[in-house]
């Protein structure tokens, strides 16, 4: 058993270092200078051992210290209490949460997958040896953290009792899971509960009992705590035998360690999830047709079959704007003093609307749907990447995107104009400028999002967004909008600048797409 533990530790070491080197090789600019020969260098094996060792130390002591400090010492200080009964009350409920949510045995990890599934290690030996390590590290880590942080609150013998209870509760939870499996005939995965509602409901109840009762000065009295402890100890001792003698670990892990459970973040699993969720977005309405031709026909069918995802967000935004407008109108009538504030805001803080429009624009959602359900497949056809094809489709898409975003933008323009009129009014030309500058902002973001998509095509063939440049430009756009939103400039001046800028930007963008998109818009 000790040998099994040693081997699994070595395997963990090996893939830790391999992942480290693999990660280095994927760093932009630096990665290409990292040779494959590093994988066989002994230095990295030692480095890996050090990394694993440090990681274990942090896991055993660091996380436990943080856990005790955040979940126990901090609440106690907020309750201004130094009572060990408060402490033990909260601890017990937290230990209950930990017992069923972190059993180790029902956690489908990569280590287990590699050792039990791929390397055919004896499931029982692997499980028991690693479970003993888990219990040992929990015991030492928890005990150390409690002694360091709670020695002046809880007597040492109660600290010892709390740690033992933690361990016993885990045995009881595992035994309970074995029982449930036997009754229901299905494997339990602690990361994917049968019912998330029940799971989070139970956690919420236990958290309420842990922190809510002490708020009202209600905690488990000492004598009751001791009775509960005795029950837990007895049930725990009974469960220990079951856990160590359990004969079906091999059967359990055969079902639990399927790649979907283990590699929840693997590229394949992610890709399959993305594909499945995107296919669901396609409308199966058989009456959908189009009487257009060529690209207009292709795009028309795309829009009609994705109407829900394309227009849902715009509809919700429009509704939100209307609601806010109605509330503000109501406020204007109820509180006359608010008129000046709102009027002043509209006349002097138009740049703030730019930031708002940045968040409200659906460009990213739409381009995402375009890639996932259309361009991902079509880009492998060479005719689809021809300059004329690209430009024809780009024009169709731009029209759709602008129209989709114009619905909330026009609503906002209208709402702001009404608010301006009701709050004290402004000159006719100001109305015009404010109205059209919001429309210009919407058009600008529609063009901007589509241009970025065509010029930087950020997705790879695995449907992940992998373009560093795209991320940098997106962040820069946000910061620019944020900076502009803080500018002290009249809405009239800003509105004029915005309208001119949106027109110039759109014209330059069209030229850029025609000139560069045939080279940039392709599968990576």
């Amino acid at each position, binding site marked *: 058993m000790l040998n099994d533990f040693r081997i699994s530790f070595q395997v963990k070491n090996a893939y830790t270092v391999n992942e480290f080197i693999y990660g280095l090789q994927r760093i932009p600019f630096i990665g*290409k200078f990292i*040779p494959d020969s590093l994988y066989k260098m002994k230095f990295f094996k030692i480095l890996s051992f050090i990394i694993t060792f440090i990681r274990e130390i942090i896991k055993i002591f660091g996380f436990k210290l943080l856990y005790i400090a955040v979940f126990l010492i901090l609440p106690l200080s907020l309750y201004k209490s130094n009572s060990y009964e408060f402490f033990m009350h909260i601890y017990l409920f937290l230990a209950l949460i930990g017992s069923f949510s972190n059993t180790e045995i029902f956690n489908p990890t990569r280590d287990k997958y590699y050792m039990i599934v791929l390397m055919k290690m004896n499931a029982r030996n692997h499980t028991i040896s690693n479970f003993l390590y888990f219990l040992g590290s929990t015991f030492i880590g928890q005990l150390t953290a409690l002694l360091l942080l709670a020695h002046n609150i809880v007597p040492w013998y109660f600290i010892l009792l709390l740690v033992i209870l933690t361990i016993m509760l885990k045995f009881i939870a595992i035994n309970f899971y074995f029982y449930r499996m036997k009754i229901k005939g299905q494997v339990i995965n602690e990361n994917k509960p049968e019912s998330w509602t029940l799971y989070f409901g139970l956690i919420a109840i236990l958290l309420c009992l842990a922190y809510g009762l002490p708020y009202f000065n209600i905690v488990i009295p000492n004598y009751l705590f001791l009775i509960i402890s005795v029950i837990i100890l007895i049930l725990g001792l009974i469960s220990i035998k079951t856990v160590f003698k359990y004969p079906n670990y091999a059967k359990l892990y055969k079902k639990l360690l399927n790649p979907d459970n283990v590699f929840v973040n693997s590229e394949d699993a992610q890709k399959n999830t993305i594909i499945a969720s995107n*296919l669901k977005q*396609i409308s*199966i309405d*058989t009456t959908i047709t189009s009487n257009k*031709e*060529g*690209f207009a*026909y*292709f795009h028309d*069918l*795309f829009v009609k*079959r*994705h109407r829900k995802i394309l227009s849902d967000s715009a509809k919700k935004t429009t509704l939100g704007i209307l609601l806010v407008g109605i509330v503000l109108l109501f406020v204007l009538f109820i509180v006359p003093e608010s008129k000046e504030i709102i009027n002043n805001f509209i006349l002097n803080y138009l740049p703030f609307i730019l930031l708002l429009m940045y968040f409200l624009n659906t460009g990213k959602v739409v381009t995402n749907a375009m890639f996932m*359900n*259309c361009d*991902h*497949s*079509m880009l*492998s*056809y*060479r*005719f689809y*990447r*021809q300059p004329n*094809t690209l430009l024809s489709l780009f024009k169709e898409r731009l029209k759709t995107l602008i129209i989709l975003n114009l619905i909330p933008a026009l609503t906002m323009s209208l709402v702001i104009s009404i608010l301006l009129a009701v709050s004290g009014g402004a000159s006719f030309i100001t109305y015009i400028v404010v109205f059209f500058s919001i429309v210009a902002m919407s058009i600008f973001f529609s063009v901007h999002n589509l241009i970025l998509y065509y010029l930087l095509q950020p997705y790879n063939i695995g449907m992940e967004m992998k373009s560093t440049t795209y991320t940098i430009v997106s962040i820069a756009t946000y910061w620019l909008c944020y900076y502009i939103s803080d500018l002290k400039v009249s809405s009239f001046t800003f509105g004029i600048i915005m309208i001119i800028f949106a027109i110039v930007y759109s014209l330059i963008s069209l030229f850029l797409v025609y000139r560069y998109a045939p080279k940039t818009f*392709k*599968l990576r």
Partner: protein
Amino acid sequence: MKLVIKNLKKNFGSKEVLKDIDFEFTSGKIYGLLGRNGAGKTTLFNCLNEDLDVDAGEFYIMDGEKRKIESKDIGYVLSTPVVPEFLTGREFLKFFIDINKDNITDIKTIDEYFDLVKIEPEDRDKLMKDYSHGMKNKVQMLVHIIASPSILLLDEPLTSFDVVVAEEMKELLKKLKKGHILIFSTHIMELALDLCDEIVVLNNGTLESIDKSNMNNDKFKEKIINVLKGEENA
């Protein structure tokens, strides 16, 4: 007409995948492209289809005179079929014919095209997201048959077909080869020997044609295996 490749090179980091490819493919033939795993068959196809930029060298069509390969000249059938799943098979063909009608000679009706690859009438108006792998593959193959490019690159296209459809597809490809260059990548030796007029091996980053001369199939197979193993030069 010939497809001429001259001194083509493609590296990934320090790894030279395509070293110095010099080769000429002639129309009217199906070429079986064989190579071991990771030999660079897909990389070669990606370079010819301009999905990847080459590091050195050139490739062009020699049709009386040298000319650059244009989009309409080349078709690439991927091993994993990709089709726009939000369209029905009929809608996709309609769109494809609409935008390529200037380049398509002898346009047939959409149903006639479906008949060609034996897609059943009840499947023609279904969304392609509900198509099987094999049906998607048929549609992908069909658009290339309709476009009829001078050069057709086929990356293991028959693997997802059942035996009956695979036989039908083989016959279709044999009919299609007249006036075209078909380069067919596969790992299945029997398929290559059965379907292809010439066997080309991609080994150590270079292409070489394997001369069959008067050998029977068994001897020829043995020779190809030896070349693939790097034990003997053809």
